[in-house]
């Protein structure tokens, strides 16, 4: 077991973890933050995406121990009381149905908009190519992200 000190959504944690514990499992089962979802465990579906020191990453492709000393943000951190503009845009555009892929897309979109505040449609679609959704057909998600970009 290895000691891990990590800040998640602004709260500091100190846990003993096995080296092979995946970050996705650490978040969900050790910390009880079940908003981050697991869809494939090989980095393709994107459902597990979180922010590591401000940058979007696949939590299923990180060992929890690798995040020692880092700052993580998960979907639970987006709403400060009210839904944030990105979340509101998803709601208005009906950009989620089952909601399982949604947290990963919200975190990746948060990264995109932080680094590229006015993305083109192509840039949004390109970022989304790393996320599988089987419910929406993607168009409402593209619209929601463009809308959120315009709004902020």
């Amino acid at each position: 077991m290895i000691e891990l000190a990590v800040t998640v959504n602004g709260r500091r944690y100190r846990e003993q973890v096995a080296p092979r514990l995946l970050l996705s499992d650490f978040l969900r089962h050790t910390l009880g933050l079940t908003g981050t979802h697991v869809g494939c465990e090989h980095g393709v579906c994107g459902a597990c995406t979180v922010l590591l020191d401000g940058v979007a990453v696949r939590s299923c492709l990180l060992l929890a121990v690798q995040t020692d000393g880092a700052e993580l943000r998960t979907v639970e951190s987006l709403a400060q009381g009210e839904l944030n503009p990105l979340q509101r845009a998803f709601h208005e555009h009906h950009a989620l149905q089952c909601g399982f892929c949604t947290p990963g897309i919200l975190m990746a979109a948060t990264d995109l908009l932080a680094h590229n505040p006015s993305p083109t449609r192509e840039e949004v679609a390109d970022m989304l190519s790393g996320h599988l959704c089987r419910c929406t057909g993607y168009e409402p998600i593209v619209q929601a992200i463009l809308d959120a970009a315009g709004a902020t």
Partner: protein
Amino acid sequence: MASADGTRTWVGQPVPRLEDEALLRGRGRYLDDLDPVPNACHAAILRSQLGHARITRLDVSAALELEGVVGVLTGADVAELSRPFPAGVESPIPYYAAANEVARYAGEPLAVVVANDRYTAEDALELIEVDYEPLPPVMDALTAAETPGLLASDRAFQYGDPEAAFAQAHLVVSQQFRFPRWSATPIECYGVVADWDEAAGALTAWANFQGPFTLHGVAAAALGVPGGKLRLITPPDSGGSYGNKASVFAYVVLLGLASRKLGVPVRWTEDRIENLAASAGATARVTHVEAAFAEDGELLAIRYDAVEDVGAYVRAPEPATLYRMHGSLSGAYRVQHVATRNRVVLTNRCPTGLNRGFGGPQLYFALERTMAIAARRLGLDPAELARRNLVRAEQQPYRTPSGGLYDSGDYPACLEDVLQLARYDERRAEQQRARAEGRLFGIGLACVVEPSISNMGYITLAQTAAERAQAPPKSGNAEAASVLVGPHGGVSVRIATTPQGQGHATACAQIVADALGLTPAEVDVQTEMDTATSAWTVASGAYSSRFSGVGAGAVHRAAEQVADKARRIAAHLLECAPDDIELVDGKGRVRGNPERALSLRRIAGTAHWNPESLPDGMDAGLESTSFYAAPNLEPPDDQDRVASSAAHGFIADVAVVEVDRATGEVQVLEYATVHDAGRLLNPLLVEGQMRGGFAHGVGAALFERTEYDDDGNLLTGSFMDYLCPTAPELPPLTSAHRESPSPFTPLGAKGLGEGNTMSAPAAIANAVADALGHDDVELPLTPPRVWQLLDESR
């Protein structure tokens, strides 16, 4: 807000979803998020490495020694502790939750290891020693049809006089079509928590099961317990299903047996590798079509010879995929003479199950490709051929030769709408110019009747009339819903439709809000389902797009009953007639005298706190549970005719493609769809379902295929090889709607959500065939496959 004169309602409005708040915050409650049983142990499943093999040795002793392992359930245990799963036809090979002596598909469960955590359980899997004696796999459906023991069912049906019709034909199109196996692959995999109670001889299981609850009975039968001893609970949220999560019942049994043998609660979350190998997918179908046409293009008769590959076992509810569309064998056309031979065969693949479209994609690929081929040979534009054959508005409700009852719709008008939406004539002109330049430009059409609300009796068509007569008939499709106004005046609704993203909670809230004079936000809808405490029936669940008709119907009925009682209570307290009371703005008020009103809270309070003041003979409380059954869903008759679905939508699609001659890439330039799904309960949800159905259809057309090699090894074993389309791959979609309310559902709504999955593969294939001038187009139309067709044409 339902207005006093009833002109404005919540139903029909694009109300944004009530579900979103929690889901956007990451507060969804999916199966793996739940912790219903403390100290549940974790399971990992040992799976067959080979597609067909005798298991000559299974040695779990080393696995048992690993620290943290609680125990192992073997295939032999499963054979001893359970019975084979019943199915729609008697399977030549009994199907158990795990293989015992013979494994019949790569990924089939052989044993279950239960340990303190999943990591340890997977470590233990590697310590189990398995000896396989390979057996020859059968992977080709047509070969299986000729192989003793692999033909599970062979039934022929004839309506009208096809032979006479063929004798008069000006043109006979004879063509074989293959529709490949694919899977809707929800992003959330299966999950089960199983807790066997030895003293009670009962299993409580949590699972992201989606119905139909006929499968609850199948699971109970396998476990050897009465239905009342299998308590099945579904979570509030499910991460997509599109049919696939019907088949999780097999794992409920497997994990239930593990819990029983080892005396501990057991939980299992499927991973993606398992999901792609061993959950469920659509059937692959080989259909030989013969279609007879008159010189003017009238479709005189159609004969199908369908060979349906259901995988290694007939797993309930199969062969439902083959029979679900039985009432729509004639599609959207007036053809009166129809025949089909339905063969169900076994191959060494994972057993199939419900998958979006559920028989529709397979049927319409064959039928609509046939129409396109015929059009070309007759020298007619496909749109004109369709025009000459579509069922006409004045014929609705329309009885098909095979017993289907279409409820409403103006199919020819929808066709004209889509041709306009797609600027069809302009596109044909553009095609001429493109062809002159040597470009491969194609336009494809598909006309699809989309059935919804399945008749639970249609599956009995797999038996002969004489066989059917020996057992009680099955029919109908019913749903249950409860609407409660609690002592506090709060309104809650309980449904058994196990939604997986379709927005049932919002739609229910709209319906109840209209009935009780509230806003949807004031209605709380509970979506989790518990067979011990919910009202439910065998047809409960979300499948075959039944919610808008039957699910909504049950909610509507229950809400109306509560509204009726609320009006009578208010009338009693306000000393007027119940007909004088209207429920508006959260109050029951006297029509024409709005100051005389009582809040719903007060009305409910009276029913709970002061039942003595209620009208004579009225029970306390303010709630209603309603079972609503869709009409016209009789069992099959002696001529093998059946109304297989209660409501029928119509979809007309036009796909415009350009094929890159050099690379074989298919670019869908534009896709237009006109959809008639009856009355739309919530246009926002409708648009979402349509886009989702379309995306799955595009996947099947261009990207997705569950591929095995000749040795039975699964080749598309991860998301790196099973290719689901992503945002850049989805073509632009334009849509329009017509609303022809169904006369057969309480709100006039029809199911939707599967239609474009049924139509898109056909429309896109038609467009590519049109571009290439090639009849034999096989899905998915990947660049290498298309290039091969081009290469062959050279």
